[in-house]
C-alpha cells in the first residue's frame, strides 16, 4: 500500500502522532514500577528512559532517511532484499498487534479495579476497541487530526497533577541516589518500555511531508513532551508518598488525585481516568493502524480498512486470554524481551547495514 495524497500528514501532525502513540496505559503505574528498583531516583530513571528513546529515534531516522521510498516495505527491500523485508514487515505487524493486546489487557485490569468491578471484561474491551477501530479505519490524516485535537487533554492532566502539590514532602525521595546509579539504570531499563510508541516512525515516516530534518525535529519534540509529562508525574508521585508507601500503591497517580478535592468536583481520579482512557484509545488505535498498514503493504492492498477489523478482532479475543495475573505477567515479560529485538536490535542492525550500503555508493 502506497500513501496517497490523502494520507500525507504535516510534521506537526507527525509530532502528535508519536506523542499520542507513546502516551498510553503506562502513566498510572509508572512511578510504582520504577520505584521498585530506583527508589528516590525513579524520576532520573524516567528521564534516562526518555533519553534512550531519543537516541533510538535518531537511529531510526538515520536509516529511514538514507532509504527514501514510498513506504516502509519498499525502503527495506532496497536495504536488505525482498524476502527479508517482507519478514521484517510481518514481524513488526505482529509486534504491534502484541503491543495492542498488552495495552488492552492493562487497560482492562485497571478499569476492573477502579470503575467496573462487576462488568464483564469483554464489555470493557469492546468499549475501547470500538472507539479505536472507528478511528483506525480512517486515513492517517484523519487519525493525526484527531490526535492533535485530543492532545489538548494533556493540559487538564498536568493541571490536575499540579493541584496534587497541596500536601507533598520534598524530602521523601531524597537522597536521589540512595540505591546508586546501578539501580537507577535498572529503573531506566524498565522505564524504557513505557516510552514505546516511537517505533511508529517506521511505518509512518514516509507519509510525512517536509524535510528529513523537520521530521526528526517533530519526532524528537513528541518524545520530549512525553518525557516531560512522565518525569513530572513520577516526581509528583515520589514526593506525595513516603518511600515505604509507594510499593503498596500500584496506581500512585490515581491516589494522588483522589487525596484532594476541588470543592466543585471531588474524586478527580474519575475524571483523570476518563482522560486517561482517551490516551489509551489513541495508543490502541495507533498500534492497530500500524499493524494493519503493515499487512496492507504486504498484500499490496489499496486500503487498510478491512485489515483493521480483523486485527482488532484478533487482538480483542487475544486479550481475553491474558487477564489472569500469571498470564498477564508472562505476556509482559515476553513483550519486554521481543521489544529489545524490535526496538533495539533490528533497528541498530539496519542502521549498521545502511551505513555500509552508503559507503559502497
Amino acid at each position, binding site marked *: 500500500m502506497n500513501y496517497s495524497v490523502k494520507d500525507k500528514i504535516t510534521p506537526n501532525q507527525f509530532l502528535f502522532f508519536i506523542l499520542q502513540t507513546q502516551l498510553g496505559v503506562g502513566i498510572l503505574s509508572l512511578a510504582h514500577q520504577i520505584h521498585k528498583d530506583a527508589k528516590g531516583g525513579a524520576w532520573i530513571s524516567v528521564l534516562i528512559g526518555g533519553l534512550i528513546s531519543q537516541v533510538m529515534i535518531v537511529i531510526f531516522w538515520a536509516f529511514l532517511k538514507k532509504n527514501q521510498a514510498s513506504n516502509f516495505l519498499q525502503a527495506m527491500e532496497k536495504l536488505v532484499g525482498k524476502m527479508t523485508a517482507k519478514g521484517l514487515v510481518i514481524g513488526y505487524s505482529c509486534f504491534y498487534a502484541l503491543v495492542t493486546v498488552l495495552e488492552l489487557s492493562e487497560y482492562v485490569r485497571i478499569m476492573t479495579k477502579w470503575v467496573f468491578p462487576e462488568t464483564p471484561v469483554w464489555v470493557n474491551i469492546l*468499549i475501547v476497541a470500538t472507539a479505536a477501530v472507528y478511528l483506525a479505519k480512517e486515513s492517517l490524516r484523519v487519525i493525526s487530526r484527531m490526535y492533535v485535537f485530543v492532545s489538548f487533554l494533556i493540559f487538564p492532566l498536568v493541571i490536575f497533577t499540579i493541584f496534587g502539590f497541596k500536601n507533598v514532602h520534598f524530602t521523601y525521595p531524597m537522597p536521589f541516589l540512595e540505591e546508586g546509579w546501578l539501580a537507577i539504570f535498572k529503573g531506566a531499563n524498565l522505564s524504557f518500555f513505557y516510552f514505546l510508541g516511537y517505533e511508529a516512525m517506521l511505518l509512518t515516516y514516509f507519509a510525512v511531508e517536509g524535510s528529513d530534518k523537520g521530521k526528526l525535529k517533530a519526532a524528537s519534540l513528541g518524545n520530549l513532551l512525553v518525557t516531560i509529562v512522565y518525569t513530572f508525574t513520577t516526581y509528583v508521585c515520589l514526593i506525595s508518598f513516603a518511600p515505604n508507601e509507594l510499593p503498596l500503591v500500584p496506581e500512585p497517580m490515581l491516589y494522588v488525585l483522589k487525596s484532594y478535592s476541588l470543592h466543585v468536583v471531588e474524586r478527580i481520579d474519575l475524571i483523570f481516568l*476518563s482522560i486517561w482512557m482517551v490516551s489509551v484509545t489513541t495508543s490502541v488505535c495507533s498500534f492497530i493502524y500500524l499493524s494493519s498498514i503493515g499487512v496492507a503493504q504486504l498484500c499490496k492492498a489499496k486500503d487498510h480498512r478491512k485489515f483493521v477489523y480483523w486485527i482488532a478482532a484478533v487482538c480483542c479475543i487475544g486479550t481475553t486470554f491474558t487477564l489472569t495475573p500469571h498470564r498477564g505477567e508472562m505476556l509482559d515479560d515476553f513483550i519486554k524481551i521481543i521489544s529489545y529485538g524490535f526496538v533495539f536490535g533490528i533497528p541498530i542492525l539496519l542502521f549498521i547495514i545502511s551505513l555500509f550500503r552508503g559507503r559502497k555508493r
Partner: protein
Amino acid sequence: MERIRRRKARMPHSQNSLSFSPEAKDVSPSVKENIDYIKEQLFHSDDILERDIYFDDRQGKLIFLETLTDKHLIIESIIKPLERAKVGAVEHVITSSGLEVGESLDKAISWIISGKCLLFLEGIPEMYVCETGLVVKRDVREPDNEGIVRGSHDGFIENLVTNLHMIRNRIENPNLVVRYFSLGKKSDTKVALVYMKNLAKEELVEEVARRLNLIPTDFILSPGFIGEYIEDDTYSPFPQLLYTERPDRTIAYLMEGRFAILTEGNPTSIIAPVTLFSFYQSPDDYHSRWMFGSLIRTIRFASFLIAFILPGLYISVVTFHPEVLPIELIYSVKSSIERVPYPSLIEAFFMELTLELIREAGIRLPTRVSQTIGIVGGLVIGDSVVQTGLVSLPMIIVVALTAISAFVVPSHELSSTVRLLRFPLMIAAAMFGFIGMTAGLFLIFTHLGKLETFGNPYFSPMMPFKLKGFKDTFIRFPLWHLNKSTKDSTPDQRNSEKAILGEGRK
C-alpha cells in the same frame, strides 16, 4: 420580414428543439388551427384566455393563461400599442420587455405555462411571444427565525429575482456571478448558483454545478431537496449546508469564497462549504464591539457543550459516580432522586420527550394558543411531575437548561443535531458512566474529524488544527485583524482588498 428571419437564424435553440422533437409541429397560417392545437395540448383548461386582435388588416388572437399573466401588462404593452398603431411590424409596435418570434408550436406550450402571452396573426406562420409574467410577492421583511438586534432587517422572499437583487445591490462587483440551473424532471424550478469569481475556488464551483446537474428528482419542493442531493455525507447527523434567509449573512459568506444556492419560490439560501463553527456565527457578533461579540460567541459554544453533554453527564454522575459531587450536594440530589422509582435514564427520556412534544406543539399552533401550551407545559407538567414523583427536581433543571442551550444555536439545523446527539450520549452514560461518555464523545469527534464538505474539513480549525483560524471562531478578533487571516475555503488572496475590487486573480 428580412429582419425576422435573421433573428430566427440567431435562435439556434429553438431550431434545435424543432429538429429533435419527433412530433414537431410548426405554426400554421391559420389562427384557429394554432389556438385549437394549444388548447388541445393544455386539455382545455379553464384558465386559458384568448382575445381577438385586429392589426395590419389581419385577424389575430392573443392567448395566455390568466392565472400566470399580468393582465395590466398585457393591456399596456400589447393591446393598447397594437390598437393605436393599427399597421406596421409587430415587433416594433409591441412594447413588452421580452419579445421573441417562434415557429414551433411545441415550444409554445412551454412558453404559455411559464406565463408568457402568445400572439398569432392570420396568414403569418409565426407567433409572437411576449413577456407578461405575473409576479406575486410579499414584502421584504426580517425573517422571524433569524432575528438580530442591530444591523439590516431585510430578508429573502419567495421571489428569486428580488433575492438576487438584494445580493447584487450589496455586492457591487463585476466578479459576482449568477448561474441559472433548472432542476426537476416534471416541473422546472429555477435555481441560481451565486459566487464570487475571484474568491471561490474554481474546482468548488465546478463540483457544485456537477452535483446540481445530477439531481434526478421530479420536482423541487424545498431547498432541503437540493441539500440532501448535494451534501457529502447523508448519514451524518451534522448539517453540512447552512440555510439562511438573511441577505447580509449570505453575502458575508460569498465574500469568504463560499457559494450560495437560491431557489425560485423559497426564501432560503443554501450556503456551502461551511464548518461547524459557521453555524455559531451570527451577524450580530459583528455589529457589537469585539469583546462583547467574543463573549456572546463563547457563551454560544458553551451552550453547544451543555446541550449535548449535560444530560449524559448528569445521568452518569447520578447512576455511577455520585461521589464526584461535593457532600452537601449529594444529600440534596439524592433525597430528590430517592422519591423516583425509575432509573434516571427513563426519567430523562420521559422529560426530554415531554419537552420535544411541547416544542413541536408550540411551532404548529397559532401564537394565541401556544401561550396555553406554555402554561400547560411549564406550570402544570413542570410542577406536578415532580410532586407526583415521576421525575426528580434536578432532572427538570438539567432538561430545562439543555432545552434553552439547544435554542441558543443561531441555526435551526444544528440545534436539531444537538438535540438528536444527546440521546446516544445519554444511553452511553446510563450504561458505562464517565467511561461511556468518553467513548461516545470520542466517536462523535472522530466523526467530526473525518467529515468533509466539498473538500473542506468540517471541523476546521480544530481538526486540522490551525491557530490562525481561531481568529473568527471562539473569539471574534477585531475586524482589522480578521482581514489578515486566511481561511480554509478559499485561495489565499480571499480577504485582500485587491481581490475584492476585482483587480486581480493572481
